[in-house]
C-alpha cells in the first residue's frame, strides 16, 4: 500500500484557522487513504478538524504530511496544492 511523507510549508490563509481547516478536512474525507499531519513532535488525524485546529498551524510553518492508502498519491497532491496556495 502506498505510503507517502512530505514536508510542506503552509502558505494558505494566515494559517489553518477554522475555515481553512474545514476545507482541508473536506478534501481529506473524499479519499479512502488516511491523512496524518505532523507538526514538531505532534501528529494528528488530518480528517479531524479538532486535531488540525489544536496544532495551531501558522502561515509559513513547515509541517509533515503523511498519506497512506490506495489513493495516497492523489490525496497528497491535492493537500499540497491546497496548503501551498497563497490566498
Amino acid at each position, binding site marked *: 500500500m502506498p505510503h507517502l511523507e512530505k514536508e510542506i510549508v503552509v502558505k494558505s490563509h494566515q494559517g489553518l484557522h477554522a475555515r481553512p481547516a474545514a476545507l482541508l*478536512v473536506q478534501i481529506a474525507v473524499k479519499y479512502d487513504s488516511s491523512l496524518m499531519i505532523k507538526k514538531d513532535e505532534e501528529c494528528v488525524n488530518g480528517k*479531524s478538524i479538532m486535531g488540525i485546529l489544536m496544532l495551531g498551524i501558522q502561515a509559513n510553518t513547515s509541517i509533515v504530511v503523511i498519506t497512506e492508502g490506495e489513493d495516497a498519491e492523489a490525496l497528497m497532491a491535492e493537500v499540497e496544492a491546497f496548503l501551498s496556495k497563497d490566498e
Partner: protein
Amino acid sequence: MNELVLKGVPAAPGIAIGSAYIVDKQDVIVPARAILEKEIPIEIARFEEALLKTREQISALKKKISDEIGSQHAQIFDAHLLVLEDRMLFDDVVKKIRTDKQSAEYAFSSIFKKYIKVFANIQDEYLRERSSDVNDIARRVLKNLIDETRFMHELENLTEELIIIAHDLSPSDTASMFNKNVLAFATDIGGRTSHTAIMAKSLGVPAVVGLKDATLRISNQDTVIVDGRMGLVILNPNDKTLSIYRAEQERILSMRNRFDDIKELPSETTDGRKLEVLANLELPEEIPMILTRGAAGIGLYRTEYFYMNRVDLPTEEEQFIAYKKVAQTMAPYPVTIRTLDLGGDKFISSLQIPRDMYPFLGWRALKFCLERPDIFKTQLRAILRASKFGKVRLMYPMVSGPGEFRSVNAILELVKSNLRRENIAFDEDMEVGVMIEVPSAAMTADILAKEAKFFSIGTNDLIQYTLAIDRVNEQTAAFYEPCHPAVLRLIQRTVDSGHKENIKIGLCGEMSGEPIYALLLLGLGVDEFSMSAGNILQIKKLIRSVGYQDAQQLAQMALTLTTGPEVEDLCRRRLQELAPDIFNVDGS
C-alpha cells in the same frame, strides 16, 4: 452609585436607555456523575443524540443567516458542523464514558476543556482568537445534554426589552437575537465594521463597540444609556443626564415622525430647483432602513468593509454578488460605488502594510490601487459586472488631478476590454466620476470636468487637507472649520467648473447632513446631497422649505466673509429665519 461614562467606538447611531443584560460566556459547571456499567450504552446514545440535535440547530442557523444577511456570513458554520462530526472528539468522549464510567455531559465537558486548554496555548494570536468558534459549539452541545433550565438566561429566552452587553458577539449569538427585543448593543471589542455593527445597523438599533471592559463594569439590570452617535455608554446615569438623553431621544423620534409625510415627495425648493437627496452606505444590511427614509439612491457606497476584519482578500465573485444585490434592490435609483479607499485611518487586514508617519498623506486609496492593480482590477471587474443589474455609477476617491484620473481610467478600460473579450455583459454607459477631496483636484476641477461624468465633493477630507488638520488627532480637532473661506472657495470653484461642462455636483461629507451647512451648500449650487440615512428627511424638509434664490444670496454673502465662525453665524441666523422648523428641531 456614581455615574460612569465609558468611551468606545460608535458603530450604529441612535440612543437607547434601558436595563443592561450581560451575555455570560462563563463556563457552565458540569458536576461529575458516575454511571453504572449497564448505563454506558445509554450515555453514548445520549451523546450521539445531542450531537445530532446540535447539528440540526446549526444547519437551521446557517440557513437563517444565509437568507437574512448573506451566505458569506454563514460559511463559518461549515467549520462548526465539522467539529460535530469530528472522529477524534467523538472517540475521546466515548472512551471517557466507557473507561471512567462518567455521564455523557461530564465526559464531553472535560474532554472539551482539555482541547480549549491546548487552544489557549497556541502562539499565534489570530489562530488563538478563532478558538471562540469551538467554544460556541461546546456550549450548544452541552445545552442539548443537560437540563435546559440552567440556560434560562440565555439570549434565546429573552422576553424583556434589554440592552445587550457582551465581550463580543458571535454570529450565532446575533442570529438568535433576530426579532428579539434588543434596544442596543455594547461590546468590549470590535470595530466599526464588526459583526455587531452590521447586526445593529440592520436591526436599526444603536451600538457602541470597543469599550474594552464594559462587561466587567456593568452588571445585570444596571441602568445604562447607549449613545451610538458619540460612542458612549453611560452607567448609572444621574437624573440630569437621564433627562438630557430622554429629551434627545424624543427629539430624534419626533423628527422621524414629523417629516415622515414628505418621504415620497421630491426634494424641490419653493422656487422650483430640483435636487437629489441620497444615502451613504457602508453595509448592504442598511438598505431596508435606507429605503424607509426616502433616499433617491446611494450617493456613496463605501467598499472598504470587504477588506477589513479578515485575513484573505475578497474575491471578484463575492464582491459581484454584494454589488449586484445593492444595485438590484435600489433600482431604478443610482448606486454610486466608490472604489477602495484604504489607508488613512482604515487598514486592510490581510496585507502587511507599513504604518506611515502621516497616514492621511501616506499610501492611500488610488496610490495604493495603482501599485496593486491586481486588487484594484478584481474590484473593477466586480463593479462592472454588477452594472448590468441596475444603475451603477463608479467613483474614484482621492484623485489628485487629471493625470491620476487618466491612469486609473486606463486600468478601467483594460478591464472593460477583457470583459468584452470574455463576452461578459456590463453597462457600457456606466458613469465614471471623481471625488473632489484633495485641494489639487478642486484646483484642477475645470480640467477634470471635461473628462468626468460627475463630481462628488468629499468635504471630510477636503477640509483636513486644505487646513492641514488631522481630523483623527484630538489636539487639532478644534481647528477643523467646515466654513473656512478656503474651503468655501474650493467648493465654489468645483461647482462652477462642473456646471460649465454640464455635469452634476454631489457632496457626500458630513456637511451635507447638517442643516446649517446644507443651506449654504444648496446656495453654492450643489445638485446632490448624500448623507447618513438618519439625516435624509430633515434635509429634504429643509430643501422643501426654502427658496433657491434665498440660499444663493446667503452663499454670495458667505463668500465675502473672512473667517469660518462668521460664516457659521450667518448660516445659523439665516436658517432660523428661513426654516424655523428645522432650526428648532436641530437645536444647533
